[in-house]
């Protein structure tokens, strides 16, 4: 593989340190907007969960505990492989970066496959907003189902975008555009991927682990 020369610093930056700082501040500002994006759904969730606790518990029990738990482990593992990829490219190891990104993407696809099997099961049980619900599904429980699809769907959309970005990273890496000095795309993508992991860490107990209260 040919090694492209490190692009020179854009005129806006005095030195590499300033550019790195700008990258991080920009990315964390974006993540803050994402926190609020998901935050609106979490707010709706909390209000309706407090209003209809029994219906939300019943809705939660239509989901598979094991699918949620395994998917959490899958996503945490994909965060580790992404963090390792960042370490490797900072050491200039492009082959290890490629392996890490492929592992992360594979785990992301596994997560989405498990999620798709859950969506399919919901479809088979007639628990999909827009299709007629069966009579045993009370309107408050329909709210839970709606929030389940809105929250996991928005999360899955972020995962799909992440998979696209990883294809871009692999391409950059293949063309020798990622080096120890030029690792910002990997580091910034890592922040995005770990954030998506964090969102799931909260979705898991809130959607899958609602206790039935006597």
């Amino acid at each position, binding site marked *: 593989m040919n090694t492209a020369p490190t692009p020179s610093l854009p005129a806006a930056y005095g030195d*590499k*340190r300033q550019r*790195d*700082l700008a990258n*991080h*501040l920009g990315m*964390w*500002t974006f*993540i*803050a907007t994402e*926190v*609020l994006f998901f*935050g*609106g759904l*979490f*707010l709706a969730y*909390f*209000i309706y969960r407090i209003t209809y606790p029994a219906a939300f518990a019943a809705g939660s029990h239509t989901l598979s*505990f094991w699918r949620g*738990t395994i998917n*959490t*482990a899958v996503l*945490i*593992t994909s*965060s*580790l492989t*992404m*963090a*390792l990829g*960042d*370490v490797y490219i*900072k050491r200039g190891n492009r082959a290890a970066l490629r392996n890490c990104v492929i592992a992360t993407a594979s785990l992301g696809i596994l997560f989405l496959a498990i999620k798709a099997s859950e969506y399919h099961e919901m479809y088979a049980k007639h628990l999909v907003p827009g299709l007629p619900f069966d009579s045993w599904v009370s309107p408050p429980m329909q709210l839970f189902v709606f929030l389940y699809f809105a929250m996991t769907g928005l999360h899955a959309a972020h995962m799909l975008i992440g998979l696209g970005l990883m294809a871009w990273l692999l391409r950059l890496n293949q063309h020798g555009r990622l080096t120890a000095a030029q690792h910002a795309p990997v580091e910034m993508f*890592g*922040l995005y991927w*770990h*954030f998506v*992991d*964090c969102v799931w*860490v*909260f979705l*898991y*107990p*809130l959607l899958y*682990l*609602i*206790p039935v*209260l*006597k």
Partner: protein
Amino acid sequence: MTERTQSIPRLVAVYLALLCLLTLTAVSTALPVGWWATPISLVIAFAKAFLIANFFMNLRGQPGIVRVFAAAGLFWLLILLVLSASDFFTRAWLG
């Protein structure tokens, strides 16, 4: 940048800690704690998010201003949740 470099053994240790916390969450669902189950699992979720942000996202190695930006996201989330909840939970007071 005074960025602290990440060590692979530390990242793996954080990963194992995250898996332990996940196991703890899953096991805690079997405990007879009733209403407390959700607060307990949310506290564990915050612990997981703290580990992910500090180590995987390397916030601990960043200059203070980056950490302030990260905290600002949570602060605005708090405004969203607390102000909205203060409306929702006080509506009955007006009769």
